[in-house]
């Protein structure tokens, strides 16, 4: 007799809890971006293809389907950490086969050599190159993400990829744990 009472009480309790939870999951639902969008937000949007996918969004979709999160060199260590935090995965080192994390670069066209073929304009994923057929092409430096995609198509190889110059506007203090900085008084040429 007692067993039946006990079973009924527990069942009732479970039903009530279940109902409350169900109600809460509907009433207090928050709109969350689908996971692919969230992953895409964390990627650097250079659309460079170093991860093996044709752009950042395809890679985001691949990550959502279980691909490794360490294939993005422009995102670097910080990017991997952010993805790991979002997806609750372990932080792993950058996959060296995809490339290495280097300082930001910017494309510069050697205008004397440009032949106006528009191949680089078509290649740039963010439309950072200004120009038209048979007319001068130039890179809008502020919009360039340094993805390198313009370099292979250029038939006269007139595009350089120098590092972005460090000025006092974008210079960063180093982590005191990692290094010590001194102002050397010898002038740097």
């Amino acid at each position, binding site marked *: 007799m007692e067993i039946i009472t006990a079973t009924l009480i527990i069942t009732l309790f479970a039903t009530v809890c279940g109902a409350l939870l169900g109600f809460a999951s509907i009433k207090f639902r928050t709109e969350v971006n689908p996971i692919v969008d969230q992953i895409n937000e964390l990627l650097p949007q250079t659309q460079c293809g170093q991860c093996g996918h044709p752009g950042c969004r395809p890679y985001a979709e691949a990550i959502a389907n279980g691909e490794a999160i360490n294939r993005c060199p422009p995102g670097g260590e910080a990017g991997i950490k952010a993805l790991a935090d979002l997806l609750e995965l372990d932080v792993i080192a950058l996959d060296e086969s995809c490339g290495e994390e280097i300082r930001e670069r910017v494309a510069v066209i050697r205008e004397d050599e440009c032949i106006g073929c528009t191949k680089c304009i078509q290649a740039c994923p963010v439309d950072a190159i200004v120009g038209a057929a048979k007319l001068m092409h130039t890179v809008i430096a502020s919009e360039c993400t340094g993805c390198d995609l313009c370099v292979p198509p250029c038939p006269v190889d007139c595009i350089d990829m120098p590092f972005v110059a460090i000025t006092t506007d974008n210079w960063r*203090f*180093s982590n*005191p744990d990692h*290094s*010590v*900085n*001194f*102002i050397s008084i010898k002038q740097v040429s």
Partner: protein
Amino acid sequence: MKNSSPFIHDARSTSHIMRLVIFALLPGALAEIYFLGWGVLINIVLCSVYALSAEAFVLKLRDRPVKPTLSDNSALLTGILIALAIPPLLPWWMSLVGVWFAIIFAKQLYGGLGFNPFNPAMVGYVLLLISFPIEMTAWLPAAELAQQQPTLLQTIQLNFLGATSNGLSLHDFRLLADGYTMATPLDESKTAFSLGLMTTEITQDPRFSPNLSSWLGLNISFLIGGLYLLFNRIIHWQIPVSLLASLFLCASIFHTFDNELFLPGWIHLFTGATMVGAFFIATDPVSAATTPKGRLIYGASIGFFIVIIRLFGGYPDAVAFSVLLLNIATPTIDHYSKPKVYGTDDGGSKNA
């Protein structure tokens, strides 16, 4: 980036501070040797050696520089605190276990100085108390009451061999003139209360007073050391003051409520490990709360728990347990007691 400003510095270093704390323990340590015998001195020496060796051992394993870390005096301080907390004739290997556990598990495994969430000395003490309850409550009686007191040689023999050369054991030295085995006043009163005795009967017992007065002397010596630290601004006033005030208040409330079932507040204040706890143990900077308001809450809560556990718990003294309990709460206390930042209406935490 050491080249970054500022380029001038206030003189006190960590090792200097720790050294001053050890120095401030001197009055208390001397008093303890006087009242409880040579065993205390042996323990201080042994525990210091154990502490430094434990730290050196782990540092070698961790591949860290040994000399700079040992010279910050924090391991030495931990060793000395444990030495002063344990009974004078505790066997050498028990104190070894306690000190090594404190330094290795409660300090170095967390990352060393500054990273431990719990007070290492208290962790070592509690480990010993729980593992060896009989030996850890075998205190010697005050000098004037004891049937006989061990000499230095006998103390060494008792500590290392368990018995003196003429066959006397620890138990023999705990006997009073009439064959009664003496314990600390708190221990005595707890046992007495559980037997149904009243406060007046306990305090009027001729054996209680001299025992109590020796512990009184001990606590006052630690108080002197604590005041020295306070005036030299080594510790902040918030923890000792709030701890002692809260302890006195809680004990007095219970005493007023029923003065036959509870000891008066001032006895609680000056017996057991109250003073050494208030000034030397609870003030351990690494494991205590850091904000001024947080410190007040921390100290007051420890005082409260000391009284509660002493009165209603299973152990006669409760400083170690209370401190460890509040160590757990420290991050939360710190989080909720942050000062109001310049220019904000609240703690500013709403603005990301």
